[in-house]
């Protein structure tokens, strides 16, 4: 007997799965931001070893497909006899991937601050950490907000890949619902719309923040 599915049934199931997309996005972004901050400070710090390691890390994660990173996190650890559940592999790979990109975005922002700002702070007796804390980071932060929010969209879309290792989020739910309903166009159309509904506010707020932070006299 053939089951009948209404569009509402489809949408309801997709929305339930979208919760996991949102959760995975949040975990990846927050975790990625924390790890990214660490990589950033190694990358721009004074220690040569740290700089080389951080640069290597960024190159590695930017230079390989996210899909391979997911496979390696999922199957790779299995080789050592560690059974990795799909959610853990997904979160780990996405956190490390996000960290690499955020560290690189933020490095650009720190380096955009003119050399003279460091020198003026130094000439007033501030040490490296004080220069960073009071002069460089507050300025870098302002220019970092728009690209960081912009990149969070990539994270949301990146979570779709985790369907391949079996994590049931929006995309995986889409293919499961398609298999049950045989309505691929409706289902994937709705899936795409939900992704859009998640990303569009991010894109808009990125644009708004960019305008706001670039406006003159915006410190008040």
């Amino acid at each position, binding site marked *: 007997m053939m089951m009948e599915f209404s569009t509402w049934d489809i949408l309801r199931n997709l929305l339930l799965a979208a919760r996991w997309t949102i959760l995975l996005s949040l975990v990846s972004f927050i975790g990625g931001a924390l790890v990214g901050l660490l990589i950033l400070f190694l990358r721009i710090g004074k220690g040569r070893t740290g700089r080389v390691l951080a640069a290597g890390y960024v190159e590695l994660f930017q230079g390989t497909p996210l899909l391979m990173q997911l496979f390696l996190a999922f199957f790779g650890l299995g080789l050592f006899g560690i059974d990795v559940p799909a959610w853990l592999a997904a979160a780990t790979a996405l956190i490390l991937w996000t960290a690499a990109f955020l560290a690189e975005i933020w490095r650009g922002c720190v380096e955009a601050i*003119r050399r*003279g*700002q460091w*020198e*003026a*702070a*130094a*000439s*007033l*007796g*501030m*040490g*490296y950490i*004080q220069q960073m804390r*009071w*002069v460089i980071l*507050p*300025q870098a932060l*302002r220019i970092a907000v728009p690209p960081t929010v912009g990149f969070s969209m990539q994270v949301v879309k990146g979570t779709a890949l985790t369907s391949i290792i079996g994590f049931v989020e929006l995309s995986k739910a889409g293919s499961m619902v398609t298999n049950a309903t045989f309505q691929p166009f409706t289902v994937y159309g709705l899936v795409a719309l939900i992704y859009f509904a998640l990303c569009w506010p991010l894109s808009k707020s990125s644009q708004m923040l960019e305008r706001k932070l670039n406006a*003159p*006299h915006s*410190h008040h």
Partner: protein
Amino acid sequence: MPLIAITDVKKRFGDNEVLKGINIDVDPGEVIAIIGKSGSGKSTLLRCINGLESIDDGSILVAGAHLAPDEASLKALRLKVGMIFQQFNLFPHLSVGRNVMLSQMVVKKTPKAEAEAMARRMLDRVGLAHKFDAYPEQLSGGQQQRVAIARALAMQPIALLCDEITSSLDPELVAEVLAVVRELAADGMTLLMVTHEMQFARDVCNRVVFMHEGRVHESGPPEELFGAPRTPELRQFVGRH
């Protein structure tokens, strides 16, 4: 004893030796102009004195303390010697008042009220007390440079290094900055300034140092240097200015 003793200082950038053995003694209260063509090493020398560039050879003593490259001695040095830059380098995210307060509070751990009082006094000294709450971008270049001077003074240095502080100003704004420097000189501040303002050097400085190709080519009182230059290089330089 000289306040700043620069002895046989050498500085190389790669194969390019920018300072080839500089000797200058600066006495307390002296106002010295360093002049010379661009590329003669005068800005580099000033940056070395404040530890923004490390030196390859020789020694720099400020008030008897050696300039060493570690952060603690650099900090101690910079508390004694302030620096004013060609590009002002005010902190754009902070108000004028905060610019002058920041390093007092962060470096010297001065309580906020005290730092603010000092900031107001120093801004008053450069004629900008009314701009306390303005942001740097709202000020003219001349005003920004005066704030930079107030910011350096708030740390109560015993000497100030001025690196072409009027060079990026529109001509009509140069005078207000020089007037502030003139007052500092009159108050007995030790000043070491790289400058292209020959008239100012003539009027205000006790001594003029002419640098040429990484060496002190001639030095002496302004009337002597400008009136009777001994070397053809200085004669040519003075003739052009």
